[in-house]
């Protein structure tokens, strides 16, 4: 977690399978932060993948597939998070999750809805 390179990879042999953990830093750029709707989008996307997906901030590590967990991050605009994916489709999952952040969870800055 302290390796802050954009994409750090470590491979661990587990029962003969190569289990890959990939991670990348993301930034919450939508103005309203990770509120209910983005958290829902994120958890839905995460659940599409087999890999375990975790979000890490300074204080905690949570399950990216759980909306309740994601909401406990209370991540405001500007927050940096580390996304870690572990499993056979980890890289694809990480790309998909990263893209959600980059697309501001499809929110517009002048959106009055939360």
């Amino acid at each position, binding site marked *: 977690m302290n390796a802050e390179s954009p994409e750090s990879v470590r491979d661990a042999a587990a029962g003969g399978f190569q289990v890959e953990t990939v991670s990348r830093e993301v930034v919450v750029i939508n*103005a*309203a*932060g*990770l*509120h*209910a*709707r983005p958290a*829902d989008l994120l958890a839905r996307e995460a659940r599409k993948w087999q890999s375990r997906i975790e979000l890490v901030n300074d204080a905690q590590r949570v399950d990216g597939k759980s*909306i*309740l*967990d994601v*909401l*406990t*991050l*209370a*991540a*405001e*605009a500007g927050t940096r998070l580390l996304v870690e994916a572990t499993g056979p489709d980890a890289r694809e999952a990480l790309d998909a999750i990263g893209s959600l952040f980059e697309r501001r969870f499809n929110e517009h800055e002048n959106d*009055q*809805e*939360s």
Partner: protein
Amino acid sequence: MKFSDFVASEAIRSHVHAGSKEGVVREMAQSLVDAGKIAAADLEGIVKAILKREELGSTGIGRGVAVPHTKHPSVSKLVGTVAVSQEGIDFQSLDGEPVQLFFLLVSPPDRPGDHLRALENISRQLRDESFCRLLKAAKEPVDIQHLLAEADGHGVVS
């Protein structure tokens, strides 16, 4: 943020009468009017805004819990209340389950951080299954008040 920072205790309801999404939102907003937290003149606007937000995706976040909410310029600080439906209400939840436990939030448009911290508190507490179970089993508003106070202090010990 603690429950006591945003939950209007006089607006807590342990037995909502409503059986529909719109009904429960209206009943909870009315309880905030009755508690003096929002103006009667703003009731309709707030109910409409909450329902419009629901159209974007249900705030039924699973485990029988929903967090209907909106921003509204009439409030200067985050206000909210808690209600329990004994029967459960179809809220088009993300997990398809009926909702028994409602946290309704109205926040000032310029304070997204407060809204996030309220959601953080609610979701963190709700990960505790006994907290959820005890809230749903509340017989009186005062039972809910005690549970929230206990969660604020040191978590629920079942």
